[in-house]
């Protein structure tokens, strides 16, 4: 089996490449023309295909001999329009090329951001409500672009009869990417921690990559939509303590109960910012809920569908993140 992996040199992608190789899947890595690949430690068996999904005209050639597309690429910085153009229009171009090829299998990297946290009660699993149009367009650029990327992928899959698997990771963390937006509001070295006892939907990048590789080889993944979290998640307070210790930060942490913070934000939004159109995300109740609402996060469907359990436990993840570096894909099975 040979997989085309987009975003292959990204934070998740480099680990997915390693995990696929570990499961005996050949890899063609699609990376941008100016991407630097030194230090990734890829073996010579990894083919590199350089293209930019936004503009390249020769995407069809990337699918030569490919059985499976693992689509991880997304634009995660820049303005809303930049993210939409890169993530959504880029996906359209990629899937148009795939439709002309013999490849019939697609694994898409989705996100928890497609879920409407505000309407979700207690447990967030694959059945939780998703954002609806037109409310979707009041959300941040990342959410809109990823929501649309999944919509476009599902349409293509339906139209062409492809086997689609959508994997929706929670907060992906790991070496050099351990800071998470849920950690609170940072003032210099100090943190205002909102809802310190809230559990976060975490997946360590190596565990997450393992799910992608497993989904590639396990036929039970076909047609499935699966949330990817390692377990019920660590509490914000503990994760932040580990983070500060791990990166050598010293500073104060001021805990604020979630119910108090969301009440203040709701009041401010209803009065001061009610008619404002460009409010920082932390001051928008729905955006705050999507980062911080205390919910129970389930990975039961992932565990039962693919018999998956995370290869690394939290302590091992901490060691991988803050301890001596190891090569991507070195996850023990």
């Amino acid at each position, binding site marked *: 089996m040979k997989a085309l992996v987009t975003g292959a040199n990204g934070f998740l992608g480099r680990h997915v490449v390693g995990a696929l190789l570990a499961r005996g899947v050949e890899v063609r890595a699609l990376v941008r*023309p100016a991407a630097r690949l030194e230090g990734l430690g890829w073996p010579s068996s990894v083919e590199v295909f350089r293209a930019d999904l936004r503009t390249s005209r020769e995407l069809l050639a990337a699918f030569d001999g490919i059985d499976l597309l693992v689509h991880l690429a997304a634009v995660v910085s820049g303005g809303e329009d930049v993210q939409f153009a890169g993530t959504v*229009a880029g996906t359209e171009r990629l899937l148009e090329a795939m439709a002309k090829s013999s490849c019939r299998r697609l694994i898409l990297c989705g996100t928890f951001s497609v879920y409407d946290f505000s309407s979700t009660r207690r447990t967030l699993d694959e059945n939780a409500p998703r954002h609806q149009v*037109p409310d979707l367009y009041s959300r941040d650029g990342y959410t809109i672009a990823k929501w649309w990327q999944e919509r476009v992928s599902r349409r293509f899959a339906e139209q062409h009869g492809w086997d689609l698997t959508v994997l929706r990771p929670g907060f992906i963390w790991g070496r050099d990417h351990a800071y998470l937006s849920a950690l609170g509001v940072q003032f210099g070295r100090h943190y205002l921690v909102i809802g310190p006892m809230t559990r976060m939907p975490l997946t360590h990048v190596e565990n997450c990559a393992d799910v992608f590789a497993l989904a590639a080889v396990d036929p039970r993944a076909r047609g499935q939509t699966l949330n990817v979290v390692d377990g019920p998640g660590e509490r914000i307070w503990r994760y932040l303590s580990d983070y500060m210790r791990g990166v050598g930060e010293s500073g104060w942490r001021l805990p604020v109960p979630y119910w108090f913070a969301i009440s203040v934000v709701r009041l401010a939004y209803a009065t001061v910012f009610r008619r404002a159109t460009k409010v920082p995300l932390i001051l928008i109740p729905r955006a705050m809920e999507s980062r911080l609402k205390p919910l129970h996060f389930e990975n039961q469907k992932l565990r039962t569908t693919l018999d998956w359990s995370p290869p690394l436990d939290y302590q091992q993840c901490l060691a991988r993140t803050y301890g001596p570096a190891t090569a991507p894909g070195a996850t023990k099975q």
Partner: protein
Amino acid sequence: MKAALIGAGQIARQHLSCLKTLPGVELAAVCDLSPATAEAAAERYGIRTWFTDHRAMLEKVRPDVVHITTPATSHFALAMDSFDAGSNVVVEKPATSTLEELEKLVRRAQECGRHLIEDHNYVFNHAPQEILRRVGTGEFGAVTHVEVLICLDILGPSGFADPNSPHPALTLAGGAIADFLPHLASLAHVFVGPHRSAQTVWTKRKPSPLPFDEFRALVDAERGTATLGFSASSQPDAFWVRVYGEQMQATANLFETRLTLDGPRNVPKPLRPFFSGLEEGKTIRRAALATLLGKFKGPGAYQGLWELLARTYQALANGSPPPVTESHVLEVNRMVEALKPRQQRP
């Protein structure tokens, strides 16, 4: 009036947001080569239909006004097709890649009895309009000189200097800076009129895919002089306009709401700087607050675009000349042509 838009990314958002607020304007259709981009814009702005083929849209919708917000190299063909469909055209700057194309476009507009309006949005920001108002009342005196300097970091890895995906503007003479020449020229034109001659300096300070990252020009115009500039290295980002009149001087930063004016003052001459400084400080503090509040609501630095579109639709509805006429567009772009570099490398 029925409005339609071609090119639903980036600046299109400002056009669509504004059109939603204009009385008597129906957003009838949106078109983009990317189906998702077109459909998302239609959903977001409550537009009934979306297309991926602009000719199909023009034929089916027959809009009164077509907004063209695609990369500059596509403007000419899209505008020609829009005129052929009987529409007026609001086109993002630069209106065309070359002056020859623009002259053809203006001829076609006149043959069709339609208007071509290039987006000279910064001319319609509050500050230039306030200065023009004071010029009109005689309070400012005749304008003798205008300085316009844009300081903008366009060398970051995304946007114009993206090493992975060459920006369409890089094909224009002058590269990315050419995208800003209509702003500089339209502001010079509105204060000192059509140019007679121009001397330019195009340079490159830092390594990047851009052919140039610094530009300066001295323009001799019919009613005065202008110095125009663009700096990709000077920080922070700013859009300075300084206008010198026979009785007053004005300074504005068009990325903010700051406008300070200095003119005759009924105090002894030695005390003038003191009172001028006090008033300037007060004005800047107020502008800082307005700029901050503007970040929460409204078009921000694009206020001029909203004003231009409002006046344009009003004029089209009344059958009066639009706020940017074809002769303005031609004169501004003749100045732009004079500002362009003779070769594409320093």
